[in-house]
């Protein structure tokens, strides 16, 4: 772990800033920012593996985090027996038929000689497969969604400890990444970008509309949490004592403690990941990855299977994003597919990586802290600024109201500018690669 | 020396170590000068230096007595130098005629007579003028490339291995065309891998070794020189 005094100083400044938020704004806000920063740091770490180590451009971070989030529902939620009885079998069978259709068409593609006949055969397999699948799947899906739709209407999960969902989320994301990587790696570099952009939109569409899976836009709430909830902490005597000594309200104290619990968990995960990532980066494997990134042609000429290496790192990085996605859902205790926005979940992470310093794990972490802090704070700052700027206008002025309303979008502008300025004037980021 | 085009005592390289060491290349009006030499001798580099695609540390390039050492390649084109690169020397998705038009891009006058002259020189191009240049055969593409460079009505035409990768028959034909071009008063400076055939048509030959002049003489004299024959022409 090679951190210079300057890097440590930058982290210290960030710590002081957060402490000031705790003092002048509220401790809860500071904890919320800290926790989200930690999660973002993990996402940024995943992206940094892909971009910083291998130069792969992933524009589908949102999709990988969402898939990771789905794992939380599927692992931690109790199953819904009525729903399983109503259509569980049908859905499983339908999914299997779908997979079988694709496999069958792949087999036809591989076995038959190229030609018009093969095209027809594949088309036929797909049509028949589609009809069969929809015959089985459609009614089962409707049946499941009809079971107690106000609070359930989905199959539920496996009722396992929620912490288990974190690695599972990583595996889910890795699976999706493998598929995408298999298709688009080895072609030109921007094809991967476009393919990941597409898959992330589709993941969100599936999450929103397949209500049997995770209730779609109706959201799954009240998911079991890995840390005691503030409500359950409040009646505890030691919490009440602590509140009294600190002079805070009991609810405030409870939520700070609960939040700190998450911070601890996240820190452990982040620590392990950084340790692994640093070790990997400085191993022969890491050196090879960077050699490939810096000169793909000569690496290929030396007989390295560049595409396979790329696939590997792409899957690994995406898995880390999935892990972060699962962590985020389990912190919120709910999954809300409607809230997944590409600007927030994909492009903001990119700003973090670039600002922090691509190719440097610590840089990605610092970038995540800085950018998330700005993301949270620029909006109120923008509002305040607009308020000041328009204070000369009448209270009822249409323009003033419009400007105040639009202050929220200042942060998009700020983030874009931050990205452009860093890219232009300090392309190596806050903590450069070494 | 007062040659029409001369790169005198050129020394320089791409950034790092020097490739050319006080190398001199010159061509007279209406003559053919050929640069030959073993692989890696800096033949193409010498030509690129004359054309300004390489920054010289020492030496000068003069065209018709004017010092053009500091001019960019584009500016040299405007001064009357035409250059045919060895590879990717055409616009593949554009038609033959459009290729020629692009060659004349910097001209503001009517260039239809020049195009007519190019078609006279390479009749096959007239037949194929509506075809995409990328679809033509290797020899025809070389003709397009030379034709494109002629569109500016240059006083000097520089060719970087024009016969690389074409069949012997096509090569002979190309050399014939090049002689024809020279007869119209255009000076030709050319780098060639096929040293023997090239020296046969050359008024002047330069044998380069490791970026420096080894032998300089008329083409016939070099062909007759036993040392040159032994070392560079395979006996």
């Amino acid at each position: 772990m090679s951190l210079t005094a300057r890097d440590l100083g930058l982290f210290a400044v960030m710590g002081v800033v957060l402490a000031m938020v705790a003092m002048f704004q509220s401790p809860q806000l500071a904890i919320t920012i800290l926790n989200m920063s930690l999660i973002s740091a993990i996402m940024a770490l995943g992206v940094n593996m892909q971009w910083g180590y291998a130069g792969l451009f992933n524009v589908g971070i949102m999709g990988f985090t969402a898939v990771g989030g789905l794992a939380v529902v599927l692992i931690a939620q109790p199953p819904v027996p009525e729903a399983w009885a109503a259509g569980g079998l049908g859905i499983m069978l339908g999914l299997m038929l779908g997979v079988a259709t694709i496999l069958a068409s792949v087999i036809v593609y591989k076995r038959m000689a190229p030609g018009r006949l093969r095209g027809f055969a594949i088309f036929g397999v797909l049509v028949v497969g589609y009809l069969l699948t929809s015959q089985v799947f459609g009614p089962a899906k409707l049946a499941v969604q009809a079971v107690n739709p106000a609070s359930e209407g989905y199959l539920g999960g496996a009722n396992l400890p929620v912490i288990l969902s974190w690695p599972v989320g990583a595996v889910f994301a890795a699976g999706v990444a493998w598929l995408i990587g298999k298709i688009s790696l080895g072609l030109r570099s921007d094809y991967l970008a476009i393919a990941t952009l597409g898959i992330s939109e589709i993941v969100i569409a599936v999450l929103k509309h397949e209500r049997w899976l995770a209730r779609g836009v109706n959201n799954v709430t009240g998911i079991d949490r890995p840390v005691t909830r503030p409500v359950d902490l409040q009646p505890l005597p030691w919490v009440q004592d602590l509140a009294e000594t600190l002079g805070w309200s009991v609810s405030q104290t409870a939520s700070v403690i609960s939040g700190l619990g998450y911070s601890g968990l996240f820190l452990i995960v982040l620590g392990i990941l950084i340790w692994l990532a640093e070790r990997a980066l400085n191993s022969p494997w890491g050196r090879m990855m960077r050699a490939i990134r810096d000169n793909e042609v000569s690496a290929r000429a030396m007989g390295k299977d560049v595409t396979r290496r790329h696939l590997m790192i792409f899957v690994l990085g995406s898995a880390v994003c999935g892990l972060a996605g699962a962590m985020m859902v389990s912190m919120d205790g709910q999954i809300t597919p409607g809230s997944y926005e590409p600007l927030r979940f994909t492009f903001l992470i990119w700003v973090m990586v670039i600002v922090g310093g691509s190719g440097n794990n610590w840089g990605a972490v610092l970038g995540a802290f800085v950018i998330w802090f700005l993301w949270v704070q620029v909006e109120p700052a923008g509002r305040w600024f607009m308020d000041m700027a328009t204070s000369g206008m009448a209270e009822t002025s249409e323009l003033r109201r419009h400007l105040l309303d639009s202050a929220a979008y200042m942060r998009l502008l700020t983030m874009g500018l931050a990205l452009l300025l860093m890219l232009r004037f300090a392309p190596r980021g806050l903590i450069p690669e070494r | 020396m007062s040659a029409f085009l001369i790169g005198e005592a050129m020394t320089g390289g791409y950034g790092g170590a020097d490739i050319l060491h006080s190398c001199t290349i010159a061509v007279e009006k209406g003559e053919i000068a050929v640069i030959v030499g073993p692989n890696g001798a800096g033949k193409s580099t010498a030509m690129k230096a004359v054309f300004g695609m390489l920054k010289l540390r020492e030496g000068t390039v003069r065209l018709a007595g004017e010092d053009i050492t500091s001019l960019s390649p584009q500016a040299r084109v405007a001064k009357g130098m035409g250059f045919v690169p060895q590879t990717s020397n055409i616009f593949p998705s554009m038609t033959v005629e459009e290729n020629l038009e692009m060659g004349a891009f910097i001209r503001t006058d009517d260039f239809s007579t020049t195009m007519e002259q190019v078609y006279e020189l390479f009749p096959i191009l007239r037949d194929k003028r509506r075809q995409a240049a990328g679809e033509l055969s290797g020899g025809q593409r070389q003709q397009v490339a030379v034709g494109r460079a002629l569109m500016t009505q240059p006083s000097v035409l520089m060719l970087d291995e024009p016969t690389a990768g074409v069949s012997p028959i096509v090569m002979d034909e190309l050399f014939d065309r090049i002689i024809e071009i020279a007869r119209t008063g255009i000076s030709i400076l050319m780098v060639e891998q096929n040293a023997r055939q090239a020296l046969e048509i050359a008024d002047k030959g330069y044998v380069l070794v490791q970026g420096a002049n080894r032998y300089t003489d008329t083409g016939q004299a070099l062909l007759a020189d036993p040392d040159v024959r032994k070392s560079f022409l395979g006996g």
Partner: protein
Amino acid sequence: MEPLNALVSVANFMLVPALAYGSQLALGALGITLIYSILRFAHFAHGDTMALGTAAVIGGTWFLQAQGIGIQPLPTALLALPFGILVMIGYLLTVDRMVYRYYRRVKAKPMIFVMASLGVMFVTNGITRLFMGVGETRFEDGGRFLFTVREFREWTGLAEGLALRSAQALTIITALVVMMVLFWFLNRTRAGKSMRAYSDNEDLALLSGINPERVVMITWIITAILLVLAGTLYGLDKGFRPFNYFQLLLPMFAAAILGGLGSPIGAIVGAYVVAFAEMGITYAWRRVFTYLMPEGLEPTSMMQLLPVDYKFAVTFAILVIVLLFRPTGIFKGKVL
């Protein structure tokens, strides 16, 4: 069996909307493909730039409406188009000067350009929302229909009706005219040919005395025109929401790649293929088959292959198929 009614039904609910949508995509994809062939990067800010251009046109429309100027029965927005185009030419040239030109000079890798275009996307997005918010804005005025379902039924006496909205008709006609002008420009003018030459062989274009900065400038100007037209027509047709424009990015890229990146004709063909596939696969065919099947055999289900929510999945599937089987696209674009 009533094939005529079936045909009218398909035309009304699928063919006409898909034709309009495809035309809008084509104008957008043309911009992507042009930028790709000249500046050689995937322009991720395309959707959001389109939104900003439309916002400028909407601003102009509001101004004109407030002045009481209009061109009934055509939408006032058409009158505001030149204003929007000028604004976007200024914007794109400014962005190029401040952002991309530097990377051209240092010969940065294509991915750096893409990254920069992400930053531009953010900024553009922010500016658009500053002006327009995130909600939907409708700015279509003038006659809404060339003819309505009712009128069509009265003329033809068919059970099914066909309506042609003026925004749709306008889109299709404008797109055709613009494409023709663009091809004339690229194939017949000196500037257009110099663009093609630059796209074909950058070094040789330089040797021939073509000024790259000029080619880049012309490219941005054309892109601005295409963007504003595409965005405005899309907005007239479906209403203006910034996020929808961002989401157009995927179908536009899919269209450009399907046709072959760098090939203008490919971008157009690709756009229509994407539009018809999206519409066709998410369209409920029940009504059509009710007319086509003999009595007693009418379909009972919706006969919809995929719900409308999955139209991006269709686009994506097309993209995947192209990447798997023919990464150069139908018209053999560049695979640099």
